[in-house]
Structure formats: C-alpha cells, structure tokens
C-alpha cells in the first residue's frame, strides 16, 4: 500500500463517518480545502492550526500535506496506475511552487529554480547578503543561545554591539530576557531565522562538533591553506 492510497482510504473513512461533510460536493474535497487555506497563510501554519481550520484530525492533515507536497513536486505514474492516478490529480510535472515544512509550520514557496524570474516581481523581501561579521555573530548566537553580547564578543574577539543591533533589526535574533547573574540581555534566534534557513528548529543546524576538533587538531592551523 503506497502512502497516497493510505491517505485516500483515511479520507474515505471520514467521509463515511460524516466528518468530511463540510466538503460534500466541494470540488477536490478535503485536499483542495487545505490547499485553499494554504493560499491565505502568510507565515508557516502548524498542522494543528490547519487541522482546526479545516476540521480534520492532525494525522489526516499531515497525510494530505504530504500528498500535496508530492503533487507539487510532480512524478510519473507507472502505466497500470495511470487511470486511478489521473483521477486523483497525480502523475504530473513539477509545479512552479512547492509546499514546505519550515520553522514548525507549512507554507507555499516559489520553486528555487525560478528565483531569477520571481525575484523581478518580489523586490521587497529580497534581502542583502549578510556580511562575514554578521554571519559569524549569528552563528555564535544560533549555537550558544541564549547568549549575551559579552559572550559573543569573547568568542569572536571583537565588539559585536552594532552587528547584534542589525541582526535584531532584520528580525533574525531577538531579546530573550536577561541573565539572572549579570543582568545582561540574552539573545536567541527567531522563527524568522529558521524560515530563512529553511529548517524546522535550531536542532537541525549542522553539527558544530565536526568543525571543532580536539586540541590534537591544532596542527591543521599550520598547514591550513585558506582561512
């Protein structure tokens, strides 16, 4: 049983149980309803929010989201499956957009391949690249959060005040209270940061440890070619 069949079966069950009555006679059923809601979402929507909005269980919404994701990515269906596939709206070429699960929620994005064309229409939101100093500061905050400016400064060896201010203005980091001991403001990354990174949580950041060898690795410094 492939996942899409499973979903259809679940869907049939709700129909039988009357839960799907909201979609009776609506074109495309629950999947299309979910899709309609995704059209008005302006920040990642959680499965719970979507489930409440569409009136389905979280599990059902999750399966439908996975199915939509596959629809948009497009795939070829083998010959014997064509008939059922075409009626379910699958077996297609990739769409210009994709459905992604980011920062704990689902949202529709234009496909990266069309960045150049889409960029002409969406000038706002396009952001200048961060400087090396800003990136390094952001990295330290991301991996050491919540962290004070003083600690970031100590790790980077420079004053980071203005860079921290800019990162906050850009919405990549935010104030997360004060250190009980020193009273210093602590910073953490935002969900916008996760969105920009295309990840679900900071746990998905690349591991720092492979980049942080033991002291034995110090010899590398002397023959590292670029730094």
């Amino acid at each position, binding site marked *: 049983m492939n996942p899409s069949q499973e979903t259809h079966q679940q869907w049939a069950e709700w129909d039988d149980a009357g839960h799907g009555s909201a979609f009776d006679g609506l074109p495309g059923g629950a999947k299309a309803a979910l899709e309609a809601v995704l059209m008005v979402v302006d920040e990642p929507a959680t499965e719970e929010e979507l489930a409440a909005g569409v009136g389905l269980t979280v599990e059902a919404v999750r399966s439908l989201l996975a199915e939509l994701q596959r629809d948009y990515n497009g795939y070829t269906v083998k010959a014997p499956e064509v008939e059922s596939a075409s009626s379910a709206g699958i077996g297609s070429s990739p769409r210009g957009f994709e459905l*992604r699960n980011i920062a704990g929620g689902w949202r529709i994005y234009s496909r990266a391949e069309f960045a150049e064309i889409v960029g002409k229409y969406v000038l706002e939101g396009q952001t200048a690249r961060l400087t090396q*100093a800003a990136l390094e500061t952001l990295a330290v905050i991301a991996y050491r959060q919540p962290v004070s400016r003083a600690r970031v400064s100590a790790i980077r*060896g420079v004053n980071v005040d203005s860079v921290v201010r800019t990162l906050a203005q850009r919405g990549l980091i935010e104030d997360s209270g004060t250190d009980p001991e020193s009273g210093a403001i602590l910073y953490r990354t935002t969900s916008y940061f996760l969105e920009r990174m*295309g990840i679900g949580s900071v746990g998905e*950041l690349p591991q720092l440890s492979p980049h942080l060898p033991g*002291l034995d690795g110090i010899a590398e410094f*002397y023959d590292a070619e670029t730094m």
Partner: protein
Amino acid sequence: MAESKPGFEVRLANFTGPFDLLLGLIAKHQLDITEVAIATVTDEFIKYIRKLQQLGEEWALDEASEFLVIAATLLDLKAARLLPAGEVEDDEDIALLEARDLLFARLLQYKAFKQVAGIMGETLHQEGRRFPRQVALEEHFAAMLPELVWKHTPQQFAALAEAALRPKTPAEPPRVALGHLHGSNVSVKEQAEVLGRRLQQESPLTFRSLIADAESTLVVVARFLALLELFRDRAVSFDQLSPLADLAIHWTADRRDWSAENLSEEFEEQL
C-alpha cells in the same frame, strides 16, 4: 615587505578580529608560531596603517588596539611554544602551558564558528531563492475581520510615539578621555634636532647629561625615542662600559648631510 605580500593587506582590509587575523597569519605564514617574527608582523601592520593614511582614510583606533591584542596573543603563544616539551618544572611553566591550551581552544572554537558561519551563509543564500507566498488577504476575507477596538486618545498615541522614537541606546559608546594623558605636546622630531645640535658640538655625551635639562618626563621619553631613531638612521652609536653604567652617545653622521627631517616618519606625531 608588505609590497611583496599583498595578501596581508587584503587580509587586514576585511579582518574582523584578533582571532581572525591570527588564524590568517598562522595560515599564511604556514609556520610554526615560534617562527613567526612579531617584528615582521608589526612592520606589515604599520605599512598597512600608513597606506590607509596615504589614501586619506581615517585609521581606526579599533584596528590599532586589536593589533595590540594580536601581538600580545602571538607573544603568549610564542612563549608557550618555546617551552621544551616534557621539561615542565615550575608553576610558571604550567601556567604558560595552560594559557597556551586556552588560547588554542579559543582559536579552535573561533575557527569552528567561522566554518559554520560559512555554511549558514551559503544556506541563507540558497534559501533566499525561494519566495514565500505572502500575499495580501483577499478583500472579502479582510472585510470579515472584526472591527478594530480603538481606545487610544491622540495624547496616548503621541506618548507611544515618544517611547518608540526615543533612542534606546546611547548614540555614542562611552569613551575613555585621553586628554589628561597629554601634559603638553612634545615632538620626537624636535627633540631629535635638539640632540643632533648638541651632539654635533660635543661627542660623546652621556644620556644622563642629554636629559639633564629635560623639563618633564615626557621630554625624557621623547629624547630616548629620538635617540633610538637616530641610532636607526646611523647618526649615533651607543657605548656602555658595564651593565647599568652611564650610556655614552657618539655622533657618527656627516654633519652636513644629517637633518632631523630624515627621521622615520612614525615619530612625527606629537607625544
């Protein structure tokens, strides 16, 4: 020196901190830290600062002070590395080794963050190619939104604006006043001229006699620095019979050729 190593300038032009520069230097010289001549690095740095001045750019106090941190760190590292392995005897040696390990640990940590920052930069760039759907709410839905509850008077609203517009951080970071450090302006070059005139009349003279009429400690310092400069220009030579004995200064330059104008320019500044 710097001319033959343009990479150093590039490195400095975008260096972001002592660790960054230290890593760069170690990498660039491909040398054990014990072989990095602090003097070489210092010369390179001074050339860089000069170049900035020639270009009419203000040279940042930040960079100069960071350089001091780097030089000190290099010296620490160097001192620690020069200790023969396995011959740790006293607490001082251990402290040096610990300082070394701490420095290495900090360097490693810095390097690790630098690497993940690179990865993050690339990810942000790639992700920036996807644009989220973030369109205005369709009018018929916008119309369904509940009527806004508004209970702010213009005065309350103005108070909000005042609070929002008031600067949150002092515009200028606190600065340490340096004014008190300057009793008066003393020029090394002027003092060099004074010394030059005196030594051309009578040579050798002791350092003690050359500073006998100095009106302040600053003048003593300036004359000492001037002598170092004169020595570098081969205008004088030194002679000391025994440790801590009086220093005798001999004038060795041709009296017609010599002029304080030829002194190296880093002492042009007033002390």
